[in-house]
């Protein structure tokens, strides 16, 4: 585990992608072969079942370090990570041991189903045999939650470099179905398991945000414009009589969407479609807030099926008749896709995502202004002769999103951040006005520069009215413009509504707390978005 611990440290002490890739390559060159599949599993989010609950870990750490509960909580709020807090507060280790990563992982897995006393003895003795950094790793092995700034793309790059294999092959191999305990590193990298696995998806082709005027992209006729849908990116795979639905998060979500199961009969074997999973009612795309009711549910009830029926807006074809179509140009893929959708007997569930016709960029810019009415987030621009790339590649696909909604709010609570912001007050709660009261409407923790964060941090420290554990109530004085992507009804929030993806657009130093928006302003916006999804393109 020492070598792995070193890797983590290297990954954390650099913020440059190249350094991280170099660290990964040298790890995969030097580490023990049995450890490698486990590391790949961890970095791609393949989590084993958690053998010990957080509550127990915390309890044992508190007991072992002999500090009161509240002091542990204070420490946690400052560290921002439970595994790390535990690793830091425990007394120094008594006897250091050096074991393979795989040995620790197997031992942890074998704790499953054992009695708590047994688990406790194992965990305490492990803590007592590891240094701070290794303890942190060990705790992370238990939670399975490694977030250390390694994207799967970065890992794939490193593995490809290390093994001198194509990126897309590696991506296939590691995205497929495999168990680290049952595959060797060589087989995994070589893709020995993926041929027998019908489900494997292709890596999604992703787009960069368009930050320049579209005119600079060149002739309109070279481009295909589509609506950018606000749903769940999905890939539908039909092979050897089996149907699989993958989400962008590399998760299999087939069971969640029974409306699409007819494809098992109607799609030809060896077909892979790319598109967006959306809630579609009477042919109209509904707001994301409605789709949300359907996500991550094990059981779906009738009301949900009625309220938020699922559809799939497809816009690309990755495989047809078992053949990889990704090196065909977009216009060719599109033609084939049109035929496939046309041949489906069940209509209006899998829908061809329409192409937005335009002769010049101004015309397209005008069309883009209607995005909200269709519950779309803007436009996608795809080069007509583009191939289907793995991951993000600059130049061929662009997302041209519409500007977000905004609301002026005042900050009323502040809390210390987590992760790299643990020592500053960076998590803020914002309110709008309702009569002479302030009603909380959003929490946000991004959008400010480091310099602004320090300024707000100083304001919080000077203007804290009350403390509730880590939370400070502050004088309602600082006005922030909050940007958000959508708005939904919410029974859990006092305001009766919740904002989607709220973040700080800017600090309005020019405004005072008297000038912020009211709750009524937001309620009106909510009504408007709900009407849109029922009446579709009707202009306000």
């Amino acid at each position, binding site marked *: 585990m020492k070598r792995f611990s070193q890797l983590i440290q290297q990954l*954390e*002490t*650099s*913020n440059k992608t190249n350094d991280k890739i170099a660290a990964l390559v040298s790890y995969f060159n030097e580490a023990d072969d049995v450890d490698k599949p486990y590391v790949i599993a961890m970095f791609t989010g393949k989590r084993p079942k958690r053998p010990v609950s957080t509550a127990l870990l915390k309890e044992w750490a508190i007991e072992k*370090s002999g*500090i*009161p509960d*509240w*002091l542990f909580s*204070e*420490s946690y709020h*400052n*560290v*921002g*990570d439970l595994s*790390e*807090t535990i690793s*830091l*507060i425990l007394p*120094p280790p008594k006897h250091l041991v050096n074991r393979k990563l795989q040995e620790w992982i197997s031992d942890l897995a074998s704790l499953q189903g054992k009695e708590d006393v047994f688990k406790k003895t194992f965990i305490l003795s492990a803590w007592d045999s590891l240094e701070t950094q290794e303890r942190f790793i060990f705790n992370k092995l238990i939670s399975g939650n490694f977030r250390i700034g390694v994207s799967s793309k970065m890992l794939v790059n490193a593995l490809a470099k290390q093994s001198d294999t194509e990126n897309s092959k590696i991506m296939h191999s590691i995205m497929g179905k495999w168990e680290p305990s049952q595959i060797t590193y060589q087989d995994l990298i070589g893709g020995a398991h993926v041929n027998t696995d019908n489900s494997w998806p292709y890596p999604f082709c992703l787009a960069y945000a368009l930050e320049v005027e579209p005119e600079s992209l060149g002739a309109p006729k070279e481009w295909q414009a589509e609506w950018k849908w606000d749903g769940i990116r999905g890939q539908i795979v039909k092979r050897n009589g089996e149907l699989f639905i993958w989400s962008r998060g590399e998760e299999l979500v087939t069971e969640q969407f029974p409306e699409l199961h007819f494809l098992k009969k109607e799609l030809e074997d060896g077909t892979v479609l790319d598109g967006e999973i959306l809630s579609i009612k009477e042919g109209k795309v509904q707001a994301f807030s409605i789709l949300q009711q359907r996500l991550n549910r094990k059981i779906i009830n009738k009301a949900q099926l009625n309220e938020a029926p699922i559809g799939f807006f497809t816009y690309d074809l990755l495989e047809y008749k078992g053949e990889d179509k990704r090196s065909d140009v977009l216009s060719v893929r599109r033609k084939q896709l049109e035929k496939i959708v046309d041949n489906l007997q069940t209509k209006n569930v899998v829908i061809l995502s329409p192409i937005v016709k335009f002769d010049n960029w101004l015309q397209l810019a005008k069309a883009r202004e209607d995005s909200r009415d269709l519950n779309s987030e803007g436009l996608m621009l795809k080069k007509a002769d583009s191939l289907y790339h793995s991951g993000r590649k600059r130049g061929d696909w662009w997302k041209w999103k519409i500007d977000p909604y905004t609301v002026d709010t005042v900050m009323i609570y502040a809390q210390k*951040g*987590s*992760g*790299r*912001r*643990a*020592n*500053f007050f960076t998590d803020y709660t914002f309110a709008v006005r309702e009569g002479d009261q302030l009603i909380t409407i959003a929490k946000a923790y991004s959008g400010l520069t480091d310099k602004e964060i*320090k300024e707000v941090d*100083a304001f919080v*420290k000077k203007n804290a009215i009350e*403390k509730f554990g880590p939370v400070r109530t502050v004088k309602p004085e600082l006005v922030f413009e909050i940007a958000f992507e959508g708005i939904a009804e919410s029974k859990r929030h006092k305001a009766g509504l919740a904002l989607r993806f709220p973040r700080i657009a800017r600090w309005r130093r020019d405004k005072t707390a008297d000038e912020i928006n009211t709750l009524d302003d937001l309620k009106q916006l909510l009504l408007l978005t709900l009407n849109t999804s029922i009446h579709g393109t009707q202009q306000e």
Partner: protein
Amino acid sequence: MHMALIQFTSKGIYCTQGDFYIDPWKPVKLAVTTHGHADHVKWGNQAYLCHELTKSILLQRLGADLQIQTLPYRQQIDINGVKLSFFPAGHVIGSAQVRLEYKGEICVVSGDYKVEYDGISTPFEPVKCHTFVSESTFGLPIYKWQPQQIIFDQIKDWISANRDENKTSVLAAYSLGKAQRLIKGLEGYGEIYVHQSIANLNEGFIHAGINLPDTIRITPETKKEDLQRGVVIVPPALTESRWTKSLLHAVTGICSGWMQVRAGRRWRSADAGFALSDHADWPGLLSAIKATTAERVFVTHGYSAVFSRYLNEIGISAEEVKTQYGQEEEKEEVL
């Protein structure tokens, strides 16, 4: 019932009987100064009283026309009947705890302190007292320092790995304190190049008789190729400066107690972080406070609320007091 020897006022810590302030943040007649960091000493006092090694710092930082009286450690003077003496605080060169005694009542104001010997500052000395005024910059149990030798080994490993890859090692350290500690700790490990703010302070120390290893002052003429083989020490404010970025393959390492926590390391977006602090860690604070046998502890800055609550729970009567210390640590380097 003892009469209160000190009070916490809007100007700073005030000794009622002696009629002087300790580390005041507003101008007063007499400012007894624990050490030369910007949050503990301000411009504009009529007179200053400090340890003899702090004098050159004050002259450099606040101007040449100050009225400064100095004292060596452990020598006692009398101010309006109050016996005052300095004891080493181990924080930075010249840092002092202020011991006050009046009619048998003893109070120690410690300023900032650390208990581990850093190789260059006079080591911390616990002083028995009735009332102890303590910092708590790192007053959480997550802060437990490794012995400095281990940290120095890590820094040296880092430097030599950088050299192997032709990278310039830039260490960020406060010009007063951390910089001298690094210079001492890295003695014999290649040429050490220092920013002028550090070089100026070093000259003062050498003049005052401190035995500091040789360093090279960085000037506009310094060749970037020379820096590449050595070690560059700059104040933290300069780590993201254009100058630092203009160095040949510069990599920065920040030396600070905040580097103990991963969030601290990532927040500063440095290439490396070394948990090397001039403040006492959690066990250090507790052992120092216990050694004073004080009946009453005032916690001035840092995690004061948490730390004083804990002290009360373990049977040491403690209270959080609001001061302006610890807030300007970041600004300290803008000389």
